[in-house]
């Protein structure tokens, strides 16, 4: 009856979630933003996404082949990095620069540190920051879609001095200049809803980041409308949903996630209102990534029965 039975340690059943499945969920959640970029900026947007993604996957494959490591292209993490990196570029970006960005993201930031699970910063984010520093004029060469209203025909919402004049709906739908994936708030929110509904991510990090920026901006400017526009513009929302939530580089305890979210929100606000640079969100997330081990250490959860043991010890010593 029982030739060669399998003997393993318990548990003998596993949840259906897999790394590939989770990354696949992120890809699906990114699709509305990709589609919105295509609708707002034209076919070139889709070409840019495709080329960047292919480059990321190719770099991962080639690197692992050259170093005789197991091939991990199948876990789809390189695809996620590629799509996110592409959506962080303006549509006018030359394709060769996109490929450079993919190299920095996959080879330098991810693989040189040991591959998935070992990188200390979000690969796509570092790709974006390096491109921004190296090709500043190309990275800020925003294209303004034809359907943009006058107030937004030549600037991103963040650059408009008096944000109370901006029409909410146009900002929400993304009819203005900016990075491809960042403009359409609706698409990002759809992706966010999907990620939370499938339990791919917890809502903690995005919600705390946006809430922190909103509250601080509203207090600073005295206008909730300005704060709302500010939360919907620039890289804030896209970064909060898709980049700050990267598993590897964000804290894993609930308390740690809260610290991290508030920290990123605070730094973004400070850079945007008191700094001289653009790129407030990118640097905030990068700093957050670097602080992650500390947030984990500060955010340990209390095990069941732990506090009472402490008290009992005290009682015993007295």
């Amino acid at each position, binding site marked *: *009856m*029982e030739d060669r*039975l*399998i*003997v*393993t*340690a*318990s*548990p*003998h*059943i*596993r*949840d259906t*979630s*897999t*790394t590939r*499945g*989770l990354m696949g969920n992120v890809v699906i959640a990114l699709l509305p933003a990709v589609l919105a970029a295509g609708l707002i900026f034209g076919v070139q947007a889709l070409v840019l996404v495709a080329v960047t993604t292919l480059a990321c996957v190719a770099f991962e494959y080639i690197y692992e082949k050259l170093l005789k490591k197991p091939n*991990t292209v199948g*876990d789809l*993490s390189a695809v996620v990095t590629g799509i996110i990196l592409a959506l962080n570029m303006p549509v006018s970006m030359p394709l060769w620069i996109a490929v450079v960005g993919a190299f920095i993201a996959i080879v330098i930031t991810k693989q040189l540190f040991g*591959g*998935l*699970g*070992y990188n200390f910063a979000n690969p796509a984010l570092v790709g974006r920051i390096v491109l921004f520093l190296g090709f500043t004029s190309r990275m800020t060469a925003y294209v303004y879609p034809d359907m943009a209203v006058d107030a937004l025909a030549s600037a991103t919402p963040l650059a408009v001095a008096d944000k109370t004049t901006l029409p909410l709906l146009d900002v929400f739908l993304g009819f203005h200049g900016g990075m491809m994936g960042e403009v359409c708030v609706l698409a990002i929110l759809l992706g966010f809803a999907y990620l939370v509904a499938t339990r791919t991510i917890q809502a903690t990090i995005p919600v705390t980041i946006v809430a922190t920026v909103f509250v601080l901006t509203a207090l600073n400017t005295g206008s909730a409308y300005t704060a709302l526009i500010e939360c919907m513009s620039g890289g804030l929302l896209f970064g909060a949903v898709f980049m700050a939530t990267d*598993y*590897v580089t964000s*804290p*894993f*305890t609930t308390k740690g996630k809260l610290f991290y979210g508030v920290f990123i929100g605070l730094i973004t606000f400070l850079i945007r209102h008191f700094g001289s640079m653009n790129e407030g969100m990118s640097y905030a997330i990068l700093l957050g990534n670097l602080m992650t081990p500390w947030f*984990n250490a500060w955010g*340990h*959860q*209390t*095990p*069941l*029965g*732990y*506090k*009472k*043991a402490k008290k*009992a*010890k005290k009682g*015993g010593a007295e």
Partner: protein
Amino acid sequence: MFKSLKRSAKGAAVPHTKATAGQPTNKMPVPEHVVIPMSMHIGAPAEPVVKKGDTVMVGTVIGKAGGFVSANIYSSVSGTVQDIAPLRMVNGAMTTAVAIKTDGAQTVDPACVPPVVTDKASLLAAVQACGLVGVGGAGFPTHVKLAANTIDTLLINAAECEPYLTTDCREMLECSDTIISGITAVMKYCEIPHCIIGIERNKPECIDLLTSLTREMKGVEVKGLPMRYPQGAEKTLVETCTGREVPQVGPSGKPGLPADVGCVIMNVTSVSTLGKFLKTGIPLVTKRVTVEGDAIARPQNIEVPIGTLYRDVIDACGGVKEGVELGKIIFGGPMMGGAAPSADFPVLKQNNGLLLFSKKAAALPEPSACIRCGRCIEACPMGLEPVVIAQDFSNKDFAALKARCVDLCVACGSCTYACPAKRPVSQTMGLAKGWYMAELRKGGK
């Protein structure tokens, strides 16, 4: 309320596969022989008191408890002692076992008379005489637990949080009278004023039945528990039912026990067995076992004499399903049960499941790199951080493991279940805990 909400979020969302819950329990025909080990409990093994060639009956003592933390062993069949020999049990430990050839008559030993119980001492004596151990899986001798003096709440564990298993569910539906009489006796003689019967909400018919039966009983309450594995683990059960937290370290300096917060936990089948013993005098000699899985021909609950070999139980359930290649035999539930290397092991007092998985269902996915998603942390019912502990363990960092309370790990397997990278997280936790405890005994660093 808050604790209950917390419990619904912690632990593993295992599938509630309970296909056999609706079928009445079948009684297994008497097997040709049984093998009864002398160690079916935590504590000292029992001493065999029969010899080869002796005639035994159902309920005859064949092993005397080897100490206070020990339990009597009774013959589950009538027949002749064939052999007394060392036996390697399914968990790898060696013990002495009594092999009995059955005569099929199942004559009950005339020495089995209902015990006279008048106070706590005589109740504990009766519990001990019953050979009762925690039949939910742990096998801890029940009289030791009940001997504590500081108990104000009796918790009846009817969570049955493991998938597949339905033995406690059937016990509640088929033997509710002995459950009630067992609870009444324990509350009365051990002077425990409160009793909470905790049942996972995936068994509404059991909740309804016991609620109606206990309506008139003073101090007894039935509580629906969140459907989240491992709700039936003792510390989680205490927390959900009473809001109390079992301390990490008890007043004695040893690991905390439910008794430290005034609770004693009895499995619903244990308390029912006690009720039966008080009525009939027949000790714990049979066990209901859920036989399930995709490789068994007729999944069912079956009542088997203790000591029956898995092989005979499987045959009584129609054997392996035709056209299916048997891959794994699991004794217990799929989350905490062990995998047996063959079918030649006896059913023990604390066994409640026998799962047969096909080669396909038994195949486990390949592990890949940890992506630090934190799902093991979300899943841990004890609030531990397996991903951090794994790191601390690979660094052999005693102080860090102490700070992360690795000793609280209950080996429930929720972390491994939840891991999307399919890493054997709970095995690492087990190794870390083992290493930490060994260092601690050496004096710590």
